[in-house]
């Protein structure tokens, strides 16, 4: 611990902090532009000047390490004069276009010039003009406003791992640009918009849409992947205007992926607003009561074994629980599943389907083995953590199969199951590496779970680590499953799964056309040849599911209702209602209540609170429930393929979004022109 004095206040701080951090601990606020907690220190904006005893000149507090016995003053006249001087220089070339600047109202420069700005400019020369740069479909540039803090460059190089931004030229003529103005090819690129302290980098899709003070802010959870990033949804009336990250050090730190941020315009397109019924191959609008009647007739004329249901990738737990109750108690069918792909699951223990080491745990690991997963596209924020670990600990990373550019170096291993099995049989080079590792991480992806020997290898892996338990600290959990969808882990907790051998029996039967009625609850990623099935689609967007459906019942999207999600680590989080659903759509549990009332004259749930209580009860009781299945006990020689992921088109909201389409086009374009060199 270091003792120092800030503004006549004695404080003690840990070693390794900067003067700026120490001052913050002492409660003295320091203005800054270039300094950012999560990025390396640049020290080039000079706004954080403070006075230090025995130093003739003021010091840049962000770049000065705190030392024992320092006497710092942050509120003297000298400091204020110095900061005013810096501000005058920053404003010398900054245009006076706040009224037409999108950053207005949340601009660091604007805010700080209220304290340190001078009302008149002494700068009589011509102001600098910098041409606009192209940085892809998400980032709008207005580089004349740039104050050269280099936060964006540091972010792209350090966090995103795509060193594409740079500062060219020098002095007054310095310009921030991508290499020859190519689109930034990172899934995290839009975070530079939040980082930019001025209006130089602003959001292209959000350009001139609204002012920050007009927006209603709702803190909620993202559903684009299973990470469960914490977000803030800004709405103007009904419309979701933008999505911003919220700080959660355990999950997304303070970044979000471009999909999380920009898929929100998909909430405006392709929406289902009223029930539809397909007659003579044509969808026709019907009233809710008519829709229920049609459904009632169908269900009454079908035996329960012929009814199946699949829940979707964005479905919240309330919906899934009500669906489960509906299938158990009203339809009396067991054929309900949440998987749209035939992946293996062993629900006998929660550790079998969670990311056990937690996202924070990645930072402590010294060895990561990826098995059948491409974390960059399956869980972007998690990949950023792997990169962080790679940079900080020089973590060694191996992958079975080529996962493409993951923003860090990794070694590709022969992608056969026998090769993988060899490690746990204590053979081969990788075993030697694994043996010597103090904190290894094995990450199994869903592509691995599709294999026939998934159970065999997974159990082998478990017993291997059981044997080597003593190598690791007590709470170290090396085995991790990386789920792709926001609803996955929640649905496993709720046991929305029907299986005989671990794989999805429902999917098999659907593909064999064994059902008469199929319910799709927001499920759009399923593909099967339709025969004579009556497909009921309950969801928010007109996409694959609605395309197949004979009856469509509209329900709200993820920003339009309260609901719980469990992220891949098993953390339960609540998403809040930020805007209103379209047309006459009803929340899924209400629809189910109505159907059951029509079918059996009794509602399932009194209200949403009742639903929530009984769901929580179920989760508590279910923790010890038995899970019976007959897995394949043998090792099969097969190849571990990493599924291609159409990153910007992975769910209904993204597919309905114009911005995502532009991103996808830009990505395809870069691949075509081969800017890799």
């Amino acid at each position, binding site marked *: 611990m270091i003792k120092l004095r800030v503004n006549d206040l004695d404080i003690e701080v840990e070693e390794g902090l900067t003067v700026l951090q120490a001052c913050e601990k002492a409660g003295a606020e320091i203005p800054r532009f270039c300094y950012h907690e999560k990025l390396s220190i640049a020290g080039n904006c000079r706004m954080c000047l403070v006075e230090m005893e025995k130093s003739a000149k003021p010091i840049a507090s962000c770049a000065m390490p705190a030392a024992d016995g320092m006497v710092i003053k942050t509120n003297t006249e000298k400091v204020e004069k110095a900061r005013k001087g810096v501000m005058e220089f920053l404003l010398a070339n900054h245009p006076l276009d706040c009224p037409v600047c999108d950053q207005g109202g949340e601009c660091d420069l604007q805010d700080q010039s209220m304290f340190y700005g001078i009302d008149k400019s002494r700068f009589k020369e011509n102001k600098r003009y910098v041409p606009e740069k192209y940085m892809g479909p998400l980032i709008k540039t207005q580089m004349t406003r740039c104050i050269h803090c280099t936060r964006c460059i540091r972010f792209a*190089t350090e966090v995103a791992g795509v060193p594409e931004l740079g500062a*060219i030229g020098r002095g007054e003529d310095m310009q921030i640009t991508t290499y020859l103005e190519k689109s930034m090819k990172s899934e995290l690129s839009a975070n530079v918009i939040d980082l930019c302290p001025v209006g130089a980098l602003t959001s292209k899709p959000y350009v001139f849409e609204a002012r920050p003070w007009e927006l209603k802010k709702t803190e909620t959870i993202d559903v684009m992947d299973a990470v469960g990033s914490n977000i803030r949804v800004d709405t103007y009336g009904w419309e979701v205007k933008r999505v911003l990250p919220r700080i959660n050090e355990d999950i997304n730190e303070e970044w979000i992926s471009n999909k999380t941020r920009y898929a929100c315009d998909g909430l405006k397109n392709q929406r289902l607003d009223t029930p539809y019924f397909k007659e003579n191959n044509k969808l026709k609008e019907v009233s809710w009561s008519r829709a229920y009647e049609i459904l009632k007739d169908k269900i009454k004329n079908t035996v329960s074994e012929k009814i199946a249901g699949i829940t979707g990738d964005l479905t919240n737990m309330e919906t899934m629980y009500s669906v489960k109750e509906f299938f158990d108690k009203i339809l009396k069918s067991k054929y309900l599943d949440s998987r749209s792909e035939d992946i293996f699951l062993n629900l006998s223990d929660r550790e079998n389907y969670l990311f056990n080491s937690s996202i924070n745990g990645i930072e402590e690991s010294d060895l990561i083995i990826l098995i059948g997963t491409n974390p960059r596209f399956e869980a972007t924020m998690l990949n950023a953590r792997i990169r962080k670990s790679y940079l900080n600990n020089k973590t060694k990373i191996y992958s079975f199969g080529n996962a493409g550019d993951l923003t860090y170096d990794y070694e590709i291993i022969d992608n056969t199951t026998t090769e993988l099995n060899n490690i746990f049989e204590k053979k081969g080079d990788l075993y030697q590496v694994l043996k010597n590792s103090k904190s290894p991480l094995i990450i199994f992806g869903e592509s691995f779970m599709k294999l026939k020997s998934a159970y065999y290898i997974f159990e082998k892996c478990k017993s291997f680590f059981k044997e080597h338990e003593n190598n690791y600290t007590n709470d170290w959990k090396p085995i991790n499953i990386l789920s792709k969808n926001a609803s996955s882990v929640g649905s496993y907790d709720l046991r929305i799964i029907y299986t005989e051998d671990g794989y999805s029996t429902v999917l098999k039967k659907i593909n064999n056309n064994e059902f008469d009625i199929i319910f799709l609850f927001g499920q759009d990623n399923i593909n099967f040849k339709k025969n004579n099935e009556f497909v009921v689609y309950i969801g928010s967007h007109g996409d694959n599911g609605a395309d197949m459906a004979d009856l469509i019942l509209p329900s709200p999207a993820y920003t339009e209702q309260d609901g719980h999600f469990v992220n891949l680590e098993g953390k339960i989080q609540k998403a809040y209602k930020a805007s209103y659903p379209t047309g006459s759509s009803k929340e899924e549990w209400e629809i189910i209540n109505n159907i059951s009332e029509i079918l059996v004259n009794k509602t399932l749930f009194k209200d949403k609170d009742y639903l929530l209580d009984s769901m929580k009860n179920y989760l508590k009781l279910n923790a010890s429930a038995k899970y019976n299945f007959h897995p394949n006990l043998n090792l099969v020689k097969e190849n571990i393929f990493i599924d291609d992921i159409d990153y910007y088109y992975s769910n209904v909201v993204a597919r309905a979004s114009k911005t995502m389409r532009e991103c996808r086009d830009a990505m395809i374009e870069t691949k075509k022109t081969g800017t890799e*060199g």
Partner: protein
Amino acid sequence: MSLKKVSKEQPDKFEFSKENLILAEKLIQKYPKEKKQSAVMPLLYLIQKQNDNWIPLVAMKYLAKYLNMPYIKVYEVATFYSMYNLAPVGNYFVQVCTTTPCMIRGAYKIIEACKEKISSKENELSKNKKCSWIEVECLGACINAPMMQINNDYYEDLDKDKALKIFEKILNDEKPEPGSYRGRKNSEPENNRTTLMDLNNA
């Protein structure tokens, strides 16, 4: 000084010549093994020497791959330093110093001469494509101000007429004599005074 313009006409290919490849390896060895990116500056200079005194974009890409670093980092360095030329320059590359001492002694007269004789704008080739000129910062020969550099030689103690004569020569592909144009040897004092001893009030 304004931002350097990158040439619009770019070659498709660049590779180090055999001799330069050996030289490049030698240069890299001057730096720690894991920090070989540090060699980017001497190697850019090497490229410039090989490629008629300017650095094309393909060469930057080539170098980035050669040193295993992001393209943008090479680009940053190349645009930062004024002595890397990013567009073709003439066989005779005239650099006129216009920093304070030279400016006081009439450097802008030489610029006028450049504009009259070579081309009306900086970084533009002369009519016979042999010559181009540029304003630069201090070349460290202030005592012989005003001065200019043509390729590897310094031409000192100039005025407009002398500069015009020099340009006349280089435009005709003749090499003018380098050094002082007022008959000085290096930077010796004029009027033969070698010490201050013989001055009364020194």
